[in-house]
């Protein structure tokens, strides 16, 4: 798909998303989860979990960013954050927040990135 050309979606998309999130918009989760917040599962999927939540728990056995979860499950970030906030509340996953914007620019961090890029 082309990133720059939004396509209009006439059909059942929003309805499906409504079902997955139980109709919530996820405004509370959005305040804490960034695109690059790393998510790690505390355990494996449990029987009876909603398929999307089970999938998150399964793919987050190793750290994975919110953006990557969205990409692998083909779900909008706004939907993923709603699912994640429930999983966090239920202690199924935990989050590793990104470096807070207030701390940027951080010279040690930037030097670490420079070192890493030099090795590419």
């Amino acid at each position, binding site marked *: *798909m*082309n*990133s*720059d*050309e*939004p*396509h*209009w*979606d006439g*059909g*059942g*998309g*929003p309805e*499906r*998303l409504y079902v997955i999130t139980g109709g919530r918009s996820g405004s509370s989760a*959005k305040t804490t989860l*960034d*695109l*690059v*917040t*790393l998510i790690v599962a505390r355990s494996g999927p449990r029987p009876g979990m909603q*398929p*999307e939540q*089970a*999938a998150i728990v*399964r*793919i987050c056995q*190793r*750290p*994975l*960013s919110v*953006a*990557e979860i*969205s*990409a*692998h*499950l*083909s*779900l*909008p*970030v706004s939907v993923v954050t709603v699912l994640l906030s429930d999983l966090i509340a239920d202690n199924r996953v935990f989050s*590793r927040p*990104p*470096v*807070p*914007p207030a701390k*940027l*620019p*951080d*010279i040690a*961090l*930037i*030097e*670490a*990135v*420079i*070192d*890493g*890029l030099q090795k*590419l």
Partner: protein
Amino acid sequence: MDFRSSESPGSVETAGPRSEDALPESATAAVKVVIVGGFGVGKTTLVGSVSEIRPLTTEETMTQAGVGVDDTAGVERKSTTTVAMDFGRISINDELVLYLFGTPGQERFWFLWRGLFEGALGAVVLVDTRRLEVSFDVIGRLEERSVPFVVAVNSFPDAPSYPLDELRGALDLPADVPIVECDARLRTSSRDVLMALMRYLQTLAVTTEAS
């Protein structure tokens, strides 16, 4: 309905990263850089050439109230747009991961991903000399938001070539903002663009700490 990309026709039960793409358990902090520019300027190419994973696509939906074009009754209805953003990943060391997001130049899309620019280390403005006016808008918006950025000029064979100082003038860039040439298809060239941004951020950090 198009929420599932063509690359992942399977269900959520089977989707997921390849095992060799897994981050180490020690990955604890992530930072991001935004690659911004007009359509076809080479954002996805740049992300793909330096990323350690095949570029991924994240989507967000935008709901708009509007009158359907073929709706002769003129009834108000809602339509949903899906906007996609490509991104890639570079493991900096065992703890730190850098994500690169390639985002369209139009500001109305930037709001879809909360914190896209706010938490970013900085941005790369990719410039196509055939369509400078697109970059002009992008640069203005980044300046408004105080997002530090460098300018990278992608070298397309049929694009007019200007000396960099002439481009600086044309884009009305402040003297301290780096401007570099690149070929987004080459890993080393794309890496050097990111390096130019980091060196620039380093000078900004030193200035901030000294003041």
